[in-house]
């Protein structure tokens, strides 16, 4: 099925561990985004990418690393997880600069 998929859907890990959240889209969209959703904040942008090998920071990038070696994939890595990174993470993509973003179903990450 075409679309945007995130994996895993649920993840529990411990503080200090490294964890990678995966995002894959089949539309060949240029732009990809990572957001986190927390109570009282809505969705906040972590990192985004305008094309393969081009990434840039969003509103809350600290503690996160991204890469985009292929257009269709945009993994998000927490190098040393902290409890404050417990959240629901959403990946999104858009075809162009002024096009709507389309979201995956999210990864619920709990850090104990």
């Amino acid at each position, binding site marked *: 099925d075409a679309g*945007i998929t995130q994996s895993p859907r649920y993840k529990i890990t411990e503080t200090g561990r490294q964890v990678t959240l995966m995002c894959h889209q089949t539309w060949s969209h240029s732009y990809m*985004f990572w957001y986190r959703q927390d109570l*009282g904040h*809505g969705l906040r942008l972590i990192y985004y990418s305008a094309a393969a090998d081009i990434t840039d920071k969003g509103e809350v990038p600290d503690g996160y690393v991204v890469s985009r070696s292929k257009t269709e994939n945009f993994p998000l890595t927490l190098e040393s997880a902290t409890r404050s990174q417990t959240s629901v993470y959403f990946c999104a993509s858009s075809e162009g*600069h*002024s096009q*709507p973003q389309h979201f995956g179903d*999210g990864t619920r990450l709990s850090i104990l």
Partner: protein
Amino acid sequence: DQQVKQNSPSLSVQEGRISILNCDYTNSMFDYFLWYKKYPAEGPTFLISISSIKDKNEDGRFTVFLNKSAKHLSLHIVPSQPGDSAVYFCAASALRTGANNLFFGTGTRLTVIP
């Protein structure tokens, strides 16, 4: 500092009536506005958008109104249906700056009562 605000956390409406969801923004550079709908355990789904060169955009039962002087937009759903029950997020972007990052409000939970 929240640049996009949805001050009503929840709204209940009778089926068949109009639902009006409101959104305010503070950044005068925002020129592209969107509404997303979100069901539990799913990602936000794009609903409708409006550019700052317009003051109204309509798509079926959904209409978005933009008042630039008041930095306010609203989403009207007419008639409301039980399947519209979801959390609605307002989002804004400053495309003119070259960025297409979205800034989201905190959401309004709409309940349509049959």
